[in-house]
């Protein structure tokens, strides 16, 4: 997993509310003025590398009693001593349909593998669990006690006896199928992927599948469950959210569904839900997100399944499913993923047994640490994450002494770990690039550098943190984290264009466009043809009203990448804002030939048409926008203005009301609704709408003027 390249979906809706005035005092409502947008979408271009995380939560903190046989020195039997260990620790995966290659559900099953079980538990290969005990207290820990391991050894030595039937514990009961019940929405890849019996040169297969989310309205997701189908061939799955369709371009190019790649770059333009790990590994039960932390799935996004598969010797048809569980609860707490990394330091000489890479980051505010995800490939050996608290005390966050890529995972803390402002997070990764490391992908060893192939390395530590004690802050605390993180990156490596880009995006989101422009220009000094940075620079300029400077930036972005629809959209918006309605209409029309389902492009084309006085065509386009997305508040609002211009006041009211149901805090829609109500003679309601508009935007002059007129009319009526 890697911070994505800056392919942010930058869309700009540049409508100035003040220019769209309906004055009921005059009969001619002036609709040649641009129709304003309700929710002028701020241009934010924050890329986060994302892997959201459904969480896993099983078998919390179960004590592991020492088997009775070890205490009283008697014979060890399956029924008395071994079955409880196996049922608890092995059976969750070793049962039909799950990841274990054979079932371990009864005496016969276990007897058939008894010496094997003794051997693999003795070396702690099974059950697989990487973190060292005592260095982080994690949910779902699956680690045998020394006593349990000894009991298995003795049981096998004594002949693997079944024992007294009355000692036999009840067979474990498992939920079949979806562990969280029937999902609200099940998604799967459109056609099955044929996994060969044998990977290329016997290697594992890393494949990414794009799963479009149907274009219904946005949802809050309380849980996500991954059902692999044939679990035995899966090592892990990362589910990423792609809002930019950037992965679709790669899909299917080799004739099979999906595309190859061990790590994935996903581009992202805002924070939600880039704050959750969506990770699956065998034996991890899915669980709902904690209270207040659902994540938001926007409409029209893609889920990308990043899968690590191990061919099992025969061809397999792969068609995993993702179950989504919705909630009406909106997110009230907003965690964030932070990434420590030092990939540019990865130049590991062949033969080096102890190559160390570190990174550290000082927290700019108080956080709670919720989960941790260390990542390296096959040369990685010793993985340590720790914190230095402001008082100088060291706190271990995770320690993996024998890193094994195959069993990597997201580890969630039993209790959030409190890390006050000023705490420094550290990662210390040690790599073994000698021939003695049997997992070394190169034989003989050779120089290993950063990259996303199995023969490359990575040094990433992701943490999920929840900012706390934030009530005094004036900006989104995650922006403060993002800014600090990106400044840290840029200081480490001034040529890190992603850091500059992300910093620019954070600045733009925090309302500091001058600083954003500076950072985007740094990116463009390094990469003049970076279409995304060009587009972001244009958007930042446009947000300051510097439309004439913005337009050439969009045009350069489009020269670098002619199919960059967001840049074209922004160009159209800028042209429209500059009063060039005809040129703007051409840009939106071009988008719509490629993407007829782009509701916003329909709405903006409609505005351009309205600006040219083509009211009938404008109305039709607004209606097209609403056919694609009935929840498009802008389109309802625009359609309301078209109806108002055509004198159809009652339908105008219906549309304005629809817009306000979706976007209740739009001062413009309240004001225009008030205007139309006043034109209908309903001064009482008009007054309350003007008042509502002014509560939201006290500067809205036409609302103030119209409020006075409406009050005067009302006074005369009474």
């Amino acid at each position, binding site marked *: 997993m890697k911070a994505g390249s800056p392919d942010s979906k930058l869309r700009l809706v540049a409508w100035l509310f003040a220019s769209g005035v309906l004055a009921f005092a005059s009969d001619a409502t002036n609709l040649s003025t641009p129709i304003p947008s309700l929710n002028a979408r701020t241009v934010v271009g924050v890329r986060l590398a994302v892997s959201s995380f459904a969480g896993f939560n099983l078998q919390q903190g179960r004590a592991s009693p020492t088997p009775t046989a070890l205490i009283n020195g008697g014979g060890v039997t399956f029924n008395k001593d071994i079955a409880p260990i196996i049922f608890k620790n092995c059976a969750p995966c070793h049962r039909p349909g799950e990841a274990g290659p054979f079932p371990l559900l009864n005496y016969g099953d276990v007897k058939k593998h008894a010496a094997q079980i003794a051997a693999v538990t003795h*070396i702690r290969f099974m059950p697989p669990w990487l973190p060292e005990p005592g260095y982080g207290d994690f949910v779902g820990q699956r680690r045998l006690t020394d006593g349990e391991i000894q009991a298995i050894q003795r049981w096998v030595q004594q002949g693997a006896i079944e024992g007294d039937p009355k000692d036999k514990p009840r067979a474990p009961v498992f939920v079949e199928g979806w562990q969280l019940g029937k999902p609200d929405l099940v998604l799967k890849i459109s056609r099955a992927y044929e996994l060969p*019996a044998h990977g290329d040169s016997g290697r594992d297969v890393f494949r990414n599948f794009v799963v479009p989310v149907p274009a219904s309205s946005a949802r809050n997701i309380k849980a996500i469950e991954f059902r692999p189908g044939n679990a035995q061939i899966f090592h892990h799955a990362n589910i990423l959210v792609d809002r930019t369709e950037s992965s679709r371009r790669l899909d299917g190019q080799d004739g099979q569904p999906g595309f190859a790649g061990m790590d994935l770059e996903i581009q992202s333009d805002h924070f939600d839900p880039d704050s959750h790990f969506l990770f699956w590994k065998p034996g991890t039960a899915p669980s709902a997100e904690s209270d207040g932390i659902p994540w938001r799935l926007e409409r029209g996004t893609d889920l990308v399944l990043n899968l690590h598969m191990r*061919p099992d*010797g025969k061809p397999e048809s792969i068609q995993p499913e993702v179950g989504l569980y919705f909630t009406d609860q909106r997110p009230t707490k907003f965690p964030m993923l932070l990434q420590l990394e030092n990939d540019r330091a990865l130049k590991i000489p062949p033969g080096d047994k102890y190559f160390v890479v570190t990174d550290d980051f000082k927290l700019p505010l108080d956080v709670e640490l919720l989960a941790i995800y260390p990542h390296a490939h096959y040369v990685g050996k010793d993985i340590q994450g720790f914190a230095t608290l402001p008082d100088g005390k060291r706190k271990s966050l995770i320690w993996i002494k024998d890193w*094994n890529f195959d069993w990597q995972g997201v580890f969630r803390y039993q209790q959030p770990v409190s890390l006050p402002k000023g705490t420094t997070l550290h990662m210390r990764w040690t790599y073994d690039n000698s021939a003695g490391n049997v997992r070394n992908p190169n*034989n003989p060893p050779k120089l290993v550098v950063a990259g996303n192939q199995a023969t490359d390395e990575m040094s990433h530590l992701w943490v999920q943190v929840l900012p706390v004690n934030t009530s005094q802050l004036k900006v989104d605390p995650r922006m403060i984290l993002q800014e600090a993180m990106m400044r840290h990156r840029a200081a480490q490596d001034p040529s890190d264009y992603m850091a500059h880009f992300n910093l620019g995006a954070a600045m733009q989101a925090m309302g500091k466009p001058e600083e954003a422009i500076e950072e985007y220009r740094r990116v463009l000094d390094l990469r003049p043809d970076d279409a995304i940075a060009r587009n972001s620079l244009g958007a930042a300029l446009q947000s300051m009203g510097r439309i004439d400077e913005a337009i050439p930036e969009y045009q350069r972005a489009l020269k670098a990448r002619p199919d960059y629809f967001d840049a074209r959209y922004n160009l159209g918006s800028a042209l429209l804002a500059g009063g060039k309605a005809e040129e703007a209409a051409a840009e939106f029309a071009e988008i719509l030939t490629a993407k007829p389902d782009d509701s916003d492009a329909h709405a903006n084309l409609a505005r351009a048409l309205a600006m040219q006085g083509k009211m009938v065509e404008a109305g039709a386009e607004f209606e097209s926008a609403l056919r694609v997305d009935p929840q498009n508040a802008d389109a309802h609002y625009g359609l309301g203005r078209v109806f108002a211009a055509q004198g159809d006041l009652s339908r105008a009211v219906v549309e304005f009301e629809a817009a306000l149901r979706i976007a209740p805090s739009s001062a413009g829609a309240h004001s225009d609704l008030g205007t139309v109500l006043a034109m209908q003679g309903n001064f009482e309601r008009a007054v309350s709408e003007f008042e509502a508009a002014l509560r939201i935007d006290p500067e809205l002059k036409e609302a103030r003027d119209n409020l006075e007129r409406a009050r005067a009319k009302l006074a005369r009526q009474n």
Partner: protein
Amino acid sequence: MTWPVILLACSVAVTSAQVRVFDLAGRAVDPLASAHSQPTVFIFTRTDCPISNRYAPEIERIHEEFRTSRIAFWLVFVDPNESPEAIRSHVSEYGYGMGVLRDLGHALVRLTGVRVTPEVAVFVPSASEPKMVYRGRIDDKYVDFGKERPQPTTHDLERVLKAIVEGKSSKAETTHAVGCFISDLETR
């Protein structure tokens, strides 16, 4: 944990009359019958051993490589509780194209000294009785449970068979194989 490769000082001569295994029709057969006249490879396996199963394509690759070399290949199933039907469908699923034997009493297991699946034993004809010239791993991909090379650095079975085909005198050899323990299985 690494395991030394053990070179045997002498080869094992066997008396084929001692050993009986079964074919899928349930008939008792002498597994070494072919080894009197041609090199013979036994690949010990079971249906539920993931390491064995992952080797299926590699086993077939080697089988294919020596198809024209008059080497007999036998897949020997060592779990007596696997039915002939289950074995048949397993063999077809994994695309094996070689003869199948069932070692219900582990007679061939004892004779060869194999410990795990997958493990192989190679016999060549000799003046009196067939002699075993190799027993052990297919290659060195697996070093221990959970310790696996991305690719093998030596292809032991392939090397031994090449030497036989090229008529080179091979000294008897054993290597340590990693896989599922045969001793866990009951015999009939």
